C-alpha cells in the first residue's frame, strides 16, 4: 500500500506544531531542546516524503545533514546547560534572567 503524500505531510506539520508549542511553553531547558529535536524530525519526515514523491534522493541527502547538525547543536546546547547548571543550580529557563536593563 502506498501512503499518499499529503498524509505524510499532515503528520509532519502536526509534529512540527507539537515541537513549536513545546519550545514556546515548556520551561525546562532540556525539554525545550527535545521539542526542537521534534521540529527537526518533522522536517526530516517531510524531506523524505517529498524526496520519495519526486523520485530523487536530494531530500534524503539533506536529511543526513540535518541529523548531523542537529546532533552537533544539541551537543553544544547540553554543554551550555551543564555549565549553566553548575553556576545557577537550575535548568528552568524562566528562572534564568540575570541579563536585563
Amino acid at each position: 500500500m502506498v501512503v499518499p503524500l499529503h498524509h505524510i505531510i499532515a503528520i509532519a506539520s502536526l509534529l512540527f506544531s507539537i515541537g513549536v508549542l513545546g519550545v514556546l511553553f515548556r520551561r525546562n531547558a532540556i525539554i525545550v531542546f527535545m521539542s526542537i529535536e521534534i521540529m527537526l524530525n518533522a522536517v526530516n519526515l517531510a524531506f523524505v516524503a517529498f524526496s520519495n514523491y519526486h523520485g530523487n534522493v536530494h531530500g534524503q541527502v539533506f536529511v543526513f545533514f540535518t541529523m548531523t547538525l542537529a546532533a552537533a547543536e544539541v551537543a553544544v546546547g547540553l554543554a551550555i546547560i551543564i555549565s549553566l547548571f553548575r553556576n545557577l543550580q537550575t535548568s528552568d529557563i524562566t528562572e534564568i534572567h540575570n541579563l536585563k536593563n
Partner: protein
Amino acid sequence: MTNLQSTAYFLPELLITGFAVLIVLIDVFIGRAGRNRVIWTLSLTAVVVVGVALYVQPVPGEALFYGSLAADPFSRFFKWIFLLATAIIYFISPYTRQLKDTAQNEYYLFLLLVMLGMFLMASALDLIIIYLSIEIVSIGSFVLAGFLKSDRLSNESSLKYVIYGAFSSGIMLYGLTLLFGLAGSTSIFDVQEALANLPQGSELMALVALVMILVGFGYKISMVPFHFWTPDVYQGAPTTITAYLSVAPKAAGFALLLRVLGITFGADPSIPWEEWVPLTGLPFGVLIAVFAALTMTIGNVLAIQQDSVKRMLAYSSVAHAGYMLMAVTLMNAQALQAIMFYLAVYLFMNLGAFVVAIVVHNQFGYDDIDDWKGLGFKIPLIAVPMGIFLFGLTGLPPTAGFIGKVYLFAVLIAAKQFWWLAVVGVLNSVVSLYYYMRILKVMFMDGEPVDKTVSDHPAMTATVLALMVPVLLLGVYWSPLLELIRSSLRIFSPGL
C-alpha cells in the same frame, strides 16, 4: 564545474580549514605556558594567508562543486568584510581584560571556523549549503558567546542564543522543505523556476515558505520580531565576540538574504536586476517594508531606555538592520549597492564603538552609561574617536555613516515607492540622535576636567584610531569604495 576543477577557486576556504586543523594539532603538543600566544600568532597568520589567497585567486563568476557554491565578485566582496572583521577581532583579543585568564585556544579556533561558515554563506547556491553554512556560523557563535565559562551572564547569553538559534533555524528548515517539495531539487535556480510556474491560486505556498525562511535569515540579521536574543547575547557575551557578532554574521546574513531571496522569489533570475520584480502575487516589497519599519522603530525606541552601553549598542544594531532592510524592499541593483556600501561603513563604525567599549571596560570596568561620566577628559584619545563613531552611527556628516544613509534613502526615493518607509526611516534617525548623543554628553559635558589622562595598551589605541580613519575618509572621498562595490555587483546566474 566539477569537484576537482572547483578546488582551484576554493583556496581561501581550504586554507581556513587547514589552519583550523593545524591549530587543533598544535594545541595538543604545546604546553600551557605561552599557548595563547602561539595560537594567536598562528590564527593571525591564517587570516593574512587567507587574505593573500583571496586577493590572488581569480574570480571565474561560475558555480563551483556542481552548482552548490558561487565564485563571483559579489561573494568576494563579502568575504573581504568577514576577513577584515575577523582580523580586527583577532588583533584586539589579547589586550582585552575579560579574556585575560582564559585559555584562548578554542576562542581563536572557533572564530576561524565561524569565518569559514560565513564564507560559505556568502556564496551559497543550494538549500543544503544555506542550512549548513548558517549552522556552522551559529554553532560556533554559541560556543563563543558562552566562552567565559564561570561567568553567569555569559552562560545565560549562550543558552538564550542556542535556544533562539536552534528554534529559528528549525522554522527556516521547514520553509526549505516546502521549497524542496515544490521544486524537487535543492538548487535555488530550480526552486525559482518551480515557483515561477506555480499554478494559479497556490501563491500562498510560496508566501508561507518565504515567511518561514525569513525567520531564519531574520534571526541572523536580528530583524524584529526575531531579535529577542540580540540584547541578551550582546550584553552577556565577551565584548570582543559581541563586536564580532554585530558586524560579521550580520553582513553574512544580508549576503544570503540578498542572493537567495533575490533569486528564489524573483520573477526573473537573470542578474543583475536593474528592475527587480517579485513573483506574481507575492507581496514581497510590502512584507519586507513592514519588517523594516518595525525593526527600525523597535530597535531605536528600546535603545533609548537602556543604561548598559553594550545593550544600547545591541538595540542600535537592530535598528541598523532595519535601515538596510529598507533597501531590500526593492532589491534592484541600486539597493544592493546601497546595502553593500552601508555594510562596509557599518563595519568600521560599529567595530570602533565596541572597541572603545572594550577599552573603557579594560581601564575602569564600566558598562553603565552613567559611569562614562567625564571620560572625555580622562581618555581623550579614545573618547574623541568614539564621538566620531557615534556621529557615523547617527548618520551625521561629514562621516561615512551619512553617505551610507543617503544611498539607502536614495533607493526608495529614486524608485518612487514606499514613501512612508523613507519617512519612518528619517524619523528613526532623529530618535537615534537622542541616545547616541546621550553618550557624548555624558562623556564630554558631565564630569570634571582631570590633571592626568589615562591610556590603554598602544595596540588598542592604534586600533581605535585606525578604525576612525575610514569613517572620516569615506565621508568625504567614497568613490573608490563605490567603484569596488559596482564591480562586485555581478551575481552568479546560470543563464549568463
